[in-house]
């Protein structure tokens, strides 16, 4: 019996039932859990109120091997995933968390959740974030970051090559 089994209780037929818990405040809407376990689905959807990412979690995890459950909790960068016990069987119940997406300043494409951006901003030194000053890279999508970098790198070369030839 592993530690996790001891904590969450064994016995698939009668309760208590092992359930998945996600801390809504801690979860930043990254894709670590959904990439590890396909039953958790992450979708970026566009609604009237702007870009949203919705992650849907199943509540019931009894059929889970403890090993997978442990990996799931370990993969979560913010420790938002934990396991609890429920007296009632959760059955097919699922729950969803929805996240506001940040849009690229240039192309308008939603590219990361706002909470992902906060997580990243907390970990990158301010001078690195301010690189490019007014045209900060932080609120650009991957493709536009590449484009901005390319244009900046090629600026001098383009001027030289636009010079009329004699």
């Amino acid at each position, binding site marked *: 019996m592993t530690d996790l089994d001891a904590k969450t209780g064994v016995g698939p037929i009668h309760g208590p039932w092992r359930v998945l818990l996600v801390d809504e405040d801690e979860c930043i809407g990254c894709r*670590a859990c959904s*990439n590890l376990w396909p039953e958790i689905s992450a979708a970026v959807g566009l609604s009237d109120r702007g870009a949203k990412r919705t992650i849907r979690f199943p509540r019931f995890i009894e059929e889970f091997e403890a090993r997978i459950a442990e990996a799931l909790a370990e993969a979560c960068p913010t420790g938002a995933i934990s396991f609890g016990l429920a007296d009632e069987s959760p059955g097919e119940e699922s729950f969803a968390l929805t996240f506001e997406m940040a849009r690229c300043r240039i192309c308008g494409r939603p590219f990361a959740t706002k909470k*992902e951006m906060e997580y990243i901003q907390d970990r990158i030194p301010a001078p690195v974030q301010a690189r*490019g000053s007014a045209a900060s890279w932080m609120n650009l999508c991957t493709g536009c970051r590449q484009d901005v970098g*390319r244009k900046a790198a*090629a600026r001098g070369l*383009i001027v030289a090559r636009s010079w009329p030839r004699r």
Partner: protein
Amino acid sequence: MEIYVDLERCIFCRACEVACERVHGTSRISVEAVKDRASVPVACHHCEAAPCALVCPSGALTQEEAEVGFEAGKCTRCGLCVVACPFGAVDLDPASMVQKCDLCPEREVPPCVLTCPTEALIFGDRFEATEELRRRAASRIAQSYAASVGRDRA
């Protein structure tokens, strides 16, 4: 060691992309033209204090002096490195693994550099690379000076 680019020499042939794809299955270097007058390859810069390594929660991306290493086995594919890279040089296909230049540690020289027909890609530490770039810039100036003197005489 890192891959540096001599933009004067890049001819937008994308041979580096093909070489990278041959080795890794997906290209981790991307070349695009700018205003039809220049082309710029973009790949991992192997930053000092690399933002991708700072945000990586699982320790798959690591800062090793002048290189940023990537260990696929530790990666959870959370995608935070993609959002943290200032250059847009990290890629995550939902169906696959994080794609980032690892400088091909198992090889002496990365295939993109070996393949580049104009030697626009330079593999070396920053001192070797700047020395080579300076030498090339000086030789270009000397050539254009010689050409202009020749033109005046004619």
